[in-house]
């Protein structure tokens, strides 16, 4: 990493160039599990955004203090701490949300993207760039979940954010029920990932390097 930090690049990197789901292909499991609706995807994204920002900040602050030999246990502990805080705050102040998401919040501890950003970025950079990187990566994750959620909820339920959009003779129309099942999650992710790669190659001369399972 160079001494001059370009925040614009970090943000663009997090949302587009190294989008956690579509380009790095990290944390695909939650991306499939919670995106049967736009709302769930969005809320999960917000929780991850918060956790990633806090974890990156903490790891960056402690980067000279944590011994490289035990860095992974330290990072895991920091992640678990902030996830627990998120879980407790959500359970107390966002009851309606917690009812839907409570099951998944604790799983953020095991998200590969959080640990990978702590290891790859926050442990080597100063506080502010680390915070920006965490927020940008979280934002990229959030947007990816919302995109998959829109795709799946619209095709699977004919609805968006829980509101019915498509209907036939007063009955809700569900064009492709399979899209809200786990199978549909893989379809949606694969199709969107392929489409983004196609755009990248066609218009930006990229190599379409997305993919690679983690």
């Amino acid at each position: 990493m160079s001494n001059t930090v370009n925040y614009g690049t970090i943000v663009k990197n997090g949302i587009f160039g190294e989008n956690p789901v579509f380009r790095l292909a990290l944390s695909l499991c939650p991306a499939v599990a919670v995106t049967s609706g736009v709302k769930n995807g969005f809320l999960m994204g917000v929780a991850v955004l918060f956790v990633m920002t806090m974890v990156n900040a903490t790891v960056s602050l402690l980067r000279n203090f944590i011994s490289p030999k035990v860095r992974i246990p330290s990072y895991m502990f920091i992640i678990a701490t902030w996830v627990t805080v998120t879980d407790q705050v959500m359970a107390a102040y966002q009851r309606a949300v917690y009812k839907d998401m409570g099951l998944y919040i604790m799983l953020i501890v095991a998200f590969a993207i959080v640990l990978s950003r702590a290891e790859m970025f926050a442990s080597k950079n100063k506080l502010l760039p680390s915070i920006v990187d965490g927020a940008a990566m979280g934002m990229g994750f959030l947007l990816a979940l919302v995109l998959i959620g829109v795709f799946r909820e619209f095709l699977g339920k004919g609805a968006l954010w829980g509101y019915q959009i498509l209907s036939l003779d007063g009955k809700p129309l569900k064009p492709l029920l399979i899209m809200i099942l786990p199978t549909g999650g893989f379809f949606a992710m694969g199709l969107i990932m392929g489409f983004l790669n196609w755009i990248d190659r066609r218009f930006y001369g990229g190599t379409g390097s997305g993919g690679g399972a983690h």
Partner: protein
Amino acid sequence: MKELVKITLGLVAIFIGAGLIIGVTYKYTSPVRFYAEKKEKEAALKEMAPEATDPIKPAGNWTIHGKSFEYYLATSSAKPVAYIASTAGKGYSSFIQMLVSLDTDLKIKDVKILRHGETPGLGDQIEEKSFTDQFKGKSLPQIKLIKGETKENIQSITGATISCRAVTNGVKDAVQTLVDTYGAGLKTAPAEVIK
């Protein structure tokens, strides 16, 4: 040796710091959470018997799927107006928790799904009013799941048969318990008047 101590102390320091952060958060969020949960439960019970003027109190416990559940007596000026039982059914991927209320004729007043983890888009259709409203006004022998059109019994939802069965069985067991507990008392009540 020196490095070992350094690493250990470093880890201990991180663990203590993390423990403090979690502890402080818990201190401030747990009372809020506790009251919110208590309020939610009271509101749900109140919804099951809106005409009850007295606070709804637990009347006893019963067991289903190896877990203990409470049942409640809703009264209005010390006269019973509804019997409520919390119950559960074993669904496709979760325990479906419900509240069932009976009126004094031992017919179902209302069924409310409290919590479940069924498949989004399929199993979670059990939450829809069109399904739960079917239970209203039904008596114990009528609580039977039917695949296909029915007005007399409970009609299953396509693609959510297991979840529907879980709800129906949970409701049936709860109603059975309430009838066993309060039904006998009801039958003897008029006899006492005659004496």
